């Protein structure tokens, strides 16, 4: 099953100019649990999906909002030369094809 079939929201945004945060929000407990248990959402797997070194990606469950937060460094500081996404609002695309 694909992540997008389970998640209500898949979004990305800066958390300050050096960090990127991706939020996965689910409508119900079952979908949240299923996503959280998937090996595809383990930190190492997400790091590989984003082409990042092992150990540089955090995956944080947030049960109060039935949400999973992914945190990683931005590749380029927001607005620096060569940046492609100043707000970091379009860095969720790899997750849209993710198979859980």
């Amino acid at each position: 099953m694909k992540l997008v079939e389970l998640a209500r929201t898949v979004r990305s945004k800066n958390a300050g100019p050096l960090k990127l945060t991706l939020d996965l929000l689910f409508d119900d407990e079952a979908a949240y649990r299923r996503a959280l248990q998937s090996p595809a959402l383990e930190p190492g797997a997400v790091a590989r999906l984003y082409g990042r070194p092992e150990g540089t990606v955090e995956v944080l469950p947030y049960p109060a909002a039935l949400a999973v937060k992914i945190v990683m460094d931005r590749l380029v500081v927001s607005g620096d030369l060569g940046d492609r996404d100043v707000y970091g609002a379009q860095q969720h695309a790899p997750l849209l094809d993710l198979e859980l």
Partner: protein
Amino acid sequence: MSAVAKLLDRRDRLRRSLKALGASGQLGYGIPEKSLAAGLERAPDYIGADMGSIDPGPYYLGSGELATAPATTRTDLTRLLRAARKLDIPLLIGTAGSAGAAPHLDKTLAMVRDIARADGLRFRLASIRADMSRPLVKEAVRSGRVTPIDSMPLLNEADIDEASHLVGQMGTEAFCRALQADADVVIAGRACDTAIFAAVPALLGCAMGPAMHMAKIIECASLCCVPGGRDPILATLEGDSFVLESMDPERRATAMSVAAHSLYEQSDPDHVAEPEGVLLVRSARYEEIDDRRTRVSGAGWIPASHPTVKLEGSVRVGERAVLLCGSCDQRVIARIGDILAEVSEVVRGLVCRDEPEDYRLIFRVYGIDGVYPWPAPPSPLPREIFILGECIAPIAERAGAVVRTTKQYLLHHGFPGRLSTAGNVAFPFTPPELSGGTAYRFNVYHIMQVDELAPLFPVEIEDL
């Protein structure tokens, strides 16, 4: 009697029920009129609005320019000033003019004075500066009291000197000082979003956990609702809990939508660091009162042992010129990476004959990897691509010369298998090269430990 004196007079009642109107999460882009009117009809005890952010990038802090259009900004300010004066309640605005440094604050204050004059509004105005003294920050660096945020390098004295503007984020303390001086309207430079809304509760002696949590949520107006939006939001702080209600009847504050908002733009949603302490969100509870309102309780607040200030600085890196063009030729699209590398080399040879290689020329190819750094091109290739060329050079003329040469040699570059010998790219308009103005980058994003916050953020009072 000032607006804030009237609140303090009623402090016993207000500690049990205090109504805050979050008018805008980014003042200057327009406030939805009907929801603002609905909010004012609810007789709020104060109005707050955030006017800036670090999100739009380093340009605004560096240049001193506003991100919002002057006419729209003036309209928004006019509506809030009129409303606050009519209800005779405090109006608090943080991060004036998009980035909150001296030029942003001064431009905002000039508008406020002008509106007051034109409308015949009379009030006491407090302004709070957020520009950091460079010798003071250098001294803090020397005594080891400045630490990088995230992966920023250590701060050095050159960074401090070079930053076009250097600001610190003020906290609740600064707004409280302004209110204690009987200000009816507070216009602050760079400020924590929470401080705008936490100051009145702090002054009245409300519990800081719920007050700070409320402030954290309503600084984004109705973004915590489903569907999220920019409409004003009303929060009622009732001792150890608060109730959220959007002023747009279509937007519902649900337990889930409010809880999820804690994650927004936060790398650690459980701990929100403020100058005066840390807000603990994990213990919060969210209960729906009805289908449009949610009650929130249980957030904790730990006062800091040493106050801290987040520093932000932005430095000029050069002048920017851009080139806009596209292609729908599959032969161009298939080889675009090589073509751009070859053209860059040709351009370098041409523009560096008598001058040093003092510029950076980069391309983003939309359709291939303009937005996300995909490891490989898509298969099949896209039908069309858009090419954004960008040059940053020491002066505008140099950046312009580089992109103009690039334009011509990209148009006519020869490559194996080329059929379109009259031109490789299409220009949407003329000229296809545009000046992008001065380019900046963040060179200060650090935390400074201080003994006292008050001397850093001076309050100035004027009676209009």
